[in-house]
């Protein structure tokens, strides 16, 4: 065993990881080699020296201060904890894909329905003048009926700000979970 090999093995040797011939061989080399012996002494002394560093004491009143903060946070959490399940299901990341799918289906359905309905609208210009407002009204109503899903979704999309706030509440709750 040469010095380079011996020095590589000094830490595991000091940690007591060797036994049998390997331990005896290394011990014999250290005993015979001043350089490796000094290296081993430095490793031992530097490790022992760590005992001389003790951090300062924590201030008095730490626990009292902690308890005050914990109780005030606990009181605040009680108020927000009523919504966790609702916010879980109403989180935008869960609702948005559903809204998007509904929009696509509704748009496709309305386009298909309009295409089917076009021949029925052709006689409209020949209708008596006094019936025009009624016809316009019917067309507007039927458009709303045709795109009812879209209108409903648009109404729900207006509530996205509210949903985002719910998501923020959920994130706060899940962060507390993830810190376990």
């Amino acid at each position, binding site marked *: 065993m040469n010095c380079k090999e011996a020095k590589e093995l000094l830490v595991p040797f000091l940690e007591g990881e060797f036994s049998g011939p390997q331990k005896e061989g290394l011990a014999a080399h250290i005993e015979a080699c001043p350089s490796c012996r000094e290296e081993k002494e430095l490793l031992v002394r*530097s490790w022992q*020296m760590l005992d001389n560093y003790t*951090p300062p*004491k924590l201030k008095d009143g*730490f626990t009292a201060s902690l308890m005050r903060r914990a109780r005030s946070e606990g009181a605040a959490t009680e108020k927000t904890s009523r919504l966790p399940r609702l916010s879980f299901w109403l989180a935008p990341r869960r609702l948005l894909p559903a809204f998007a799918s509904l929009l696509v289906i509704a748009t496709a359905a309305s386009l298909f329905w309009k295409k089917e309905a076009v021949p029925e609208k052709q006689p409209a210009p020949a209708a008596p003048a006094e019936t025009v407002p009624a016809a316009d009204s019917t067309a507007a109503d039927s458009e709303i009926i045709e795109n009812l899903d879209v209108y409903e979704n648009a109404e729900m999309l207006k509530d996205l700000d509210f949903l985002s706030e719910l998501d923020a509440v959920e994130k706060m709750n899940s962060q507390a979970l993830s810190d*376990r």
Partner: protein
Amino acid sequence: MDRMDFIDEDIELMLRFQSGDEACFERLAELHKDRVFNMACRFLGDYQEAEDTTQEVFLKIYRAKNIYRPQAKFTTWLYIICKNTCLKALDKKHPGTVSLDGIIELEEDAAPMQAADPSSPSPVDSMVDSEAASVIKAAIDSLPPSQRMAVILCRYERLSYEEAAAVMLCSVKAVKSMLHRARVGLKEKLAAYFKK
């Protein structure tokens, strides 16, 4: 693992706290505040940051009241929370220094927390009353975060390799490797002090 293998006084206190007895949480904080503070102080090297981190560790435990399940020794859980909170504090101070997913970077050249520059003492330095302590603190601060954490857990907190690996979310082999490098690094830093 059998549940009874690790049920201890701390876990009983935590379970009683879970049942609504806040005095048990206060007792847990009293029992472990010095342990957490010492670990944070040695890792962060700054009194105020260590105090803030200690408070944050216990607040996390307080917030986990309703979700806590005794799946390991309480102190293992405490050390993991403390390690994660220390890493977050260090990353806040030196962005990019550490991985925040709970695994300490193992790179040898990971940046040390602060240069061991005697001309810019931290608040803890002013409270370190002996030359030896000041030299040791500088040597520990100069270690990469992974090695520093390994030294704190194994040398100061007297954790076994297995326990340290559980806290650091790495293998026992990795803990041994970090300790090996830390010991060599500390020896080199402290050798000059011995030769005075």
